[in-house]
């Protein structure tokens, strides 16, 4: 049976932990807000790009193909796993990796973005081709580096299909691992889930008449496609970061709550024990007095 001193020590330890998790929760919530703002800041860009794509697609000749849209039957696949760098964010990475295992490992190479993904891939002894890092506030340059690498691999014929697995940010409480078929570009709809801008482009074409393209619609579209991919990758990184921070916030909030509950229980235990020892002492004194008297 632990003495009062042991309990006191435990209370102190739990209090320290609660302080740390509380601080982490604050930091995560501040970062989460920033990540959400960053995702919003990309929207005008997405809108404009959607509109341009809509205009270009209407203008191009129907038999237009681009090497990035080429469908091949090679069957060599590449999976990009976008995870966090640090842990302490609840079940975020675990669910992500469980999903990754469903992909199957035959004929597949892996690419990691984020340190946890790299650790996972090497732990499972899967072939790792490249490892990328991205900062806490993802930069477009970082997304472009990943996207360029994937495009090069694809165009060089190293892989025939590229998929991306990342955590989609749904709300502060919900994040879901999601698949994105990155290459080849099967259908060109819009850069992100938002379809705004697209309709405007079609409308614009209908009313404004013919667009001129310099040098030609095909060439502009050909140049736009890599950008389209870069931007998609950028959005993936932003989503992952927003998910990470909100998952960490929730996990840390739970940890803080648990710690506080534990402190309460321990304090109760401590007081009971203290009272018991005082009562015992009083009894001893009383008994001693009676024996003397």
């Amino acid at each position, binding site marked *: 049976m632990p003495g009062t001193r042991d309990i006191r020590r435990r209370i102190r330890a739990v209090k320290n932990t609660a302080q740390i998790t509380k601080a982490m929760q604050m930091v995560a919530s501040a970062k989460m807000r920033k990540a959400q703002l*960053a995702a919003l*800041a*990309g929207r*005008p*860009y997405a809108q*404009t*790009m959607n*509109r*341009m794509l809509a*205009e*270009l697609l209407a203008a191009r000749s129907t038999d237009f193909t681009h090497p990035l849209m080429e469908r091949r039957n090679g069957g060599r696949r590449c999976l990009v796993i976008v995870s966090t760098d640090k842990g302490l964010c609840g079940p975020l990475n675990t669910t992500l990796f469980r999903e990754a295992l469903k992909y199957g490992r035959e004929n597949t190479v892996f690419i990691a973005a984020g340190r946890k993904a790299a650790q996972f891939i090497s732990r499972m002894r899967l072939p790792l081709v490249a490892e990328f890092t991205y900062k806490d506030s993802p930069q*477009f*340059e970082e997304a*472009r*580096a990943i996207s*360029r*690498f994937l495009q*090069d691999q694809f165009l060089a014929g190293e892989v025939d299909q590229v998929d991306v697995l990342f955590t989609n940010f749904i709300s502060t409480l919900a994040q879901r691992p999601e698949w994105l078929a990155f290459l080849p570009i099967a259908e060109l709809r819009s850069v992100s889930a938002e379809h705004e801008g697209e309709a405007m482009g079609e409308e*614009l074409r209908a009313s*404004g*008449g*013919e*667009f*001129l*393209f*310099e*040098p030609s619609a095909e*060439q*502009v579209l050909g*140049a*736009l496609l890599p*950008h389209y991919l870069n*931007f998609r990758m*950028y959005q993936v990184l932003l989503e992952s970061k927003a998910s990470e921070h909100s998952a960490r916030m929730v996990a840390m909030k739970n940890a803080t709550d648990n710690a506080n509950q534990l402190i309460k229980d321990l304090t109760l235990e401590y007081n009971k024990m203290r009272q018991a020892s005082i009562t015992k002492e009083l009894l001893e004194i009383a008994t001693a007095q009676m024996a003397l008297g």
Partner: protein
Amino acid sequence: MAHTLKLEIVTPDSKVFSGDVEMVTLPGIEGEMGIYPQHVPLMTQLVPGEVVARQAGRDLFLAVGEGFVEITGDHVNIITDMAIEAENIDEAKAEEARRRAEARLAQQISDEEAAAVRAMLARATVQVQVKRRRAGK
């Protein structure tokens, strides 16, 4: 009839410029282009260079990276990797970035890195050029 163009310049991180201007000069892939209101609808690629926007008789200068331009009768939309107003360019920093990129290019590096560094070099060079030209005047 409209006498102004609505110019919008957006990058993945933010909307850099949005406002009514009388004229825009921008670096297209087939050469410098000056755009007035009522321009024919046009779409083209943007190359790293300088965008000049005339707003209420005053010229505004921006250094831009690679991107795309969409022009309709009364709108000019530019999406690009980078857009910085001349006043906000830190010449020393840009020059430093340029020198670093050049030094990196001189070494043995992989193709993809070379491409990235070259893009960086182009962006830094444009910033320095825009800044110098404006400072000289």
